[in-house]
């Protein structure tokens, strides 16, 4: 009996490890939270997500909400806004990015300029799914790790429709821009967009880039 259980565990081990592969080790930013003007630290694992999912309705905005979360197994969001620049270490960010690099994730998008860095990585195994989003600015740090299948289009449609009150200065949330209007300008020259190797660059369809 014990042997059967052991063999079953051995058989399940790869499945379990694959399911957890998209879960990244995010640094403990508790010290950073103390320095930040505003911070958001959300860690929802599979069990908590399941519990929350059970109470999302199936109509209207809730239906989209339910659709967006149906295949998620975990969501981890860390956002810090600071009053002064350079309050966090890029080493912390690099430690997360190196995990996805070593695990063979695909870099979907990368934007870098003098001050800003935005990267989006997707877990290579499409059956499991997973996403890492990193955005660093001198006074803001955003790290998002989603475990599970991610539908970027559904996700991007959710902004402003989840009943989250729009409080000015809420870290990580930018006011939505009306369609057709480019987003608010940022500091510095236009950044160089570098599509990741193996990912098709944006097709020439001005003025709008293709949806994520």
């Amino acid at each position, binding site marked *: 009996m014990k042997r059967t259980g052991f063999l079953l565990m051995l058989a399940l081990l790869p499945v379990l490890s694959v399911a957890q592969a998209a879960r990244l080790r995010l640094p403990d930013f508790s010290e950073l939270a103390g320095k930040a003007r505003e911070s958001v630290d959300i860690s929802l694992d599979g069990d908590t997500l399941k519990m929350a999912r059970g*109470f999302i309705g199936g109509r209207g905005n809730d239906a989209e909400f339910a659709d967006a979360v149906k295949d998620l197994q975990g969501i981890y969001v860390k956002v810090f806004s600071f009053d002064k620049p350079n309050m966090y270490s890029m080493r912390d960010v690099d430690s997360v990015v190196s995990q996805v690099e070593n695990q063979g994730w695909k870099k979907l998008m990368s934007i870098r300029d003098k001050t800003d860095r935005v990267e989006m990585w997707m877990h290579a195994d499409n059956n499991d799914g997973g996403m890492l989003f990193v*955005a660093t600015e001198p006074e803001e740090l955003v790290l998002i790790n989603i475990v599970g299948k991610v539908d970027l289009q559904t996700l991007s449609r959710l902004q402003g429709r989840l009943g989250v009150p729009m409080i000015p200065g809420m870290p990580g949330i930018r006011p939505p*821009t009306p369609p057709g209007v480019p987003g608010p300008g940022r500091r510095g020259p236009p*950044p160089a967009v570098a599509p990741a190797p193996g990912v098709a660059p944006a097709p020439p369809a001005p003025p709008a880039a293709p949806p994520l």
Partner: protein
Amino acid sequence: MDIERSLQAALRPVDPPADFTAGVMARIAREQQQRRRARWQMPVALAASLLVAAVGVRIVMQQREQQRIETARQQLALALEITSSQLNGLQQRLNRNTMENGI
């Protein structure tokens, strides 16, 4: 002499009334019944208190569970709102770069 007569009159044997025995027996029965009832009162009161306490604990636990679910739901909504906002910000940035680079 008068005292003697008075004493005799006062100490004259008097027969109990006809319903005396029935009254005593009825009183004994009544007291036994009360005693029997008192014996049950404590456990019943205790059981009722326990029931009320159990129901109270259950209600508090349900409220806490509800609170936990609601907190999880709000956190999920905020996490998705931030993610969505960041994705849209990236999209806007790509659009802007596309326009600026004149592609």
